[in-house]
């Protein structure tokens, strides 16, 4: 008996276990589905035109993780959406709510549609009624003859305006219609009306006039004669001219309005539309948003730069890309090309900065990722960093030759080892190095030039082999926004692409306004060590910045 109970308990346990297991298995995809469903309704705060579900950005990934976590914590989809709304506002919802002020967004289009339908129906009804009036009231030939036989002269007999009898009203209406007919004829002859409009309007007035004449004819004969008729004031030419002027005013006002509207729209659209800087660039409306506009000039300069780069005409390429950056300081392609040029010149640090600038604007810009990866791998020997960059690039590049190239480079990078050898950019780190293989000293600035210091400038301390008399530098150190006097050291850590930091060296320094080591800008302040060349290991290699570039 006991055994049987034990077996049943065991069987139940196993059964429960399998159910739990199945539930677990079922809930995993369900959680992903729910996460995706909620993420589809949230706007990615970075891409903004994509949902959190569709965006490949890191921020969207983290937002999806938060959604998943909150689902696991038992929160409902509405609670999760409310959470994001509390942080980012209603903006974060791709589908605005159907309650409160947002409801207007759902209702208004239908209201406008309804009003449009009503307006269209009203206009159609008017047309139909007009046609009906014309067709339903055929003019009696006798009345027509009487109407056309009326003397449309300048002087119409006009009934007494004070007489409010039905007969007098009819007579006044007849006179008014006669005036209208006369005006219509005048407008038609003046060419202000098309023939079809003239015929339609004339028919309409004649129909009304026929009705009036019919009613007049049905009155007792003495009633027509009796109302005191007094000569109507002459319809003078100036009055007709005023009517014509009014028509002219309408045309001018309408034309001016259309012209201004067209101009305003044209100006606004040309201001607002610009080519996207990159695939991550979501801003398309620039008007008053503070972003700069792209132009044909920028595209031309980019083309020129690319061609010059391909032909290895680097000075020309630099000029072209500088032109691009002057208009679009954040153009990732121009920064990337500048990076490649700096790599060619042996300025690994400068290149890295250029690639970082490009990536700060377009984090997935393949060209910049490739450049940064190569610098980290080959120049800096930062294998982990290079692997991370190439891995990112691999996720972006579609299958093909380029992808194979990335895979090949990734395979080449040693799996372990490799120490990042970023430049020692702070004075603190420089003083840590052994003093035997370094040159040290102080950089000062001529007191007369204190006023010329640009607070955002970067200081470059440059070492060149004395034997070469120029050419590419052996080592460069960059210090952002230095405060003078400033101590410095140069060592193997600052050397370019593994060049040996030995021998006789010329030391120069430059306070560079645009922070770009390749370019010279008017206002850059430079100076040399007065006893150049020096041997590695020399101390007190002091440089005074005393020459201003014109």
């Amino acid at each position: 008996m006991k055994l049987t109970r034990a077996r049943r308990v065991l069987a139940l346990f196993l059964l429960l276990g399998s159910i739990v297991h199945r539930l677990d298995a079922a809930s995993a995809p369900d959680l992903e589905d729910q996460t995706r469903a909620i993420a589809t309704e949230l706007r990615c705060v970075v891409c903004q035109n994509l949902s959190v579900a569709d965006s490949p950005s890191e921020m969207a990934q983290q937002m999806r993780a938060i959604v998943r976590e909150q689902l696991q914590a038992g929160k409902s989809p509405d609670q999760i959406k409310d959470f994001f709304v509390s942080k980012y506002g209603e903006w974060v919802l791709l589908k605005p709510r159907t309650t409160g002020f947002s409801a207007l967004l759902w209702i208004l289009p239908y209201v406008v549609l309804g009003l449009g339908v009503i307006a269209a129906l009203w206009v159609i009804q008017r047309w139909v009624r007009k046609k009906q009036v014309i067709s339903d009231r055929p003019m009696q030939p006798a009345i027509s003859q009487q109407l056309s036989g009326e003397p449309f002269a300048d002087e119409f007999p006009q009934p007494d305006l004070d007489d409010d009898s039905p007969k007098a009203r009819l007579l006044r209406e007849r006179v008014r219609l006669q005036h209208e007919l006369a005006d219509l004829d005048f407008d038609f002859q003046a060419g202000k009306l098309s023939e079809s409009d003239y015929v339609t309007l004339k028919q309409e007035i004649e129909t009304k006039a026929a009705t009036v004449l019919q009613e007049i004819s049905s009155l007792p004969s003495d009633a027509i004669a009796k109302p005191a008729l007094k000569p109507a004031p002459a319809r003078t030419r100036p009055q007709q001219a005023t009517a014509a002027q009014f028509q002219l005013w309408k045309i001018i006002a309408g034309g001016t309005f259309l012209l201004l509207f067209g101009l305003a729209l044209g100006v606004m659209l040309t201001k607002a539309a610009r080519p996207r800087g990159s695939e991550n660039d979501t801003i398309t409306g620039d008007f008053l948003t503070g972003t700069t506009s792209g132009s044909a000039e920028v595209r031309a300069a980019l083309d020129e730069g690319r061609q010059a780069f391909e032909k290895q005409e680097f000075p020309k390429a630099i000029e072209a890309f500088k032109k691009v950056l002057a208009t679009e300081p954040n153009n990732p392609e121009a920064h990337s090309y500048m990076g490649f040029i700096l790599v060619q010149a042996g300025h690994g640090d400068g290149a890295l900065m250029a690639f970082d600038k490009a990536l700060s604007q377009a984090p997935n810009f393949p060209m910049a990722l490739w450049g940064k990866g190569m610098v980290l791998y080959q120049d800096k020997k930062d294998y982990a960093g290079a692997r991370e960059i190439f891995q990112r690039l691999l996720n972006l590049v579609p299958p093909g030759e380029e992808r194979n190239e990335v895979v090949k480079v990734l395979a080449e990078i040693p799996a372990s080892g490799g120490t990042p050898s970023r430049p020692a950019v702070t004075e603190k780190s420089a003083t840590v190095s052994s003093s035997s293989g370094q040159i040290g000293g102080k950089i000062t600035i001529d007191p007369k030039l204190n006023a010329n210091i640009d607070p955002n400038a970067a200081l470059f301390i440059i070492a060149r082999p004395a034997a070469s008399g120029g050419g590419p530098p052996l080592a460069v150190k960059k210090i952002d926004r230095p405060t003078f006097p400033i101590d410095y050291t140069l060592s193997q850590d600052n050397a370019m692409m593994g060049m040996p930091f030995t021998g006789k060296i010329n030391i120069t320094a430059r306070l560079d306004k645009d922070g770009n080591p390749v370019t010279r800008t008017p206002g850059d302040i430079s100076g040399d060590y007065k006893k150049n060349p020096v041997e590695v290991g020399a101390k007190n290699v002091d440089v005074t910045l005393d020459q201003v570039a014109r």
Partner: protein
Amino acid sequence: MPVRRVVITLLIIGPLLALLAYGFTRDSHYIVSPLLAKPATPFTLKLFDGRDLSLADLRGKAVFLNFWASWCVPCREEARELEAAWQKIKDKNMIFVGVAVQDTDQNALEFLKEFNISYPNGKDETAKIAVDYGTWGIPESFFIDPQGRITYKHVGGIRAALVVSKLEEAAKSIVSAQEGKGDYSAVK
């Protein structure tokens, strides 16, 4: 009759044109934070030196909370300004907290070393703090009063003078009417 028609036409076209013009003045990329004057969400940040920093422990102090990343150019531009501001106010009842987002430990530490940053900094590994504060661009800065309420937000690079003056306002629980905006760059 014609005047009436003109008026009706203008009444219809006018609001549409006004709507169009308003649309052109808006930056669709910009997200206005709903958090101003709201209580700051509590968080615990693992600092780079290994300690834990909790916002709750900072109650009674005016807090400057800065979200940054080493790869972000405006963050580099403001780094020295922030350190200068910190040096000015560190002896007062105020504190700076830096939160690195979407960054590697190595790059973040190099950044702190490069700019000699001496105030507490840590990394928001999962971006939970960043989302709790509704950040969408880097850098973004929040000012929190001693009672734990957000008094001001600044999107983009910020200058030392503004940091100091807004912190002084935060210390007095003065809430700014609207957030500030400098240059910004989107988060990765």
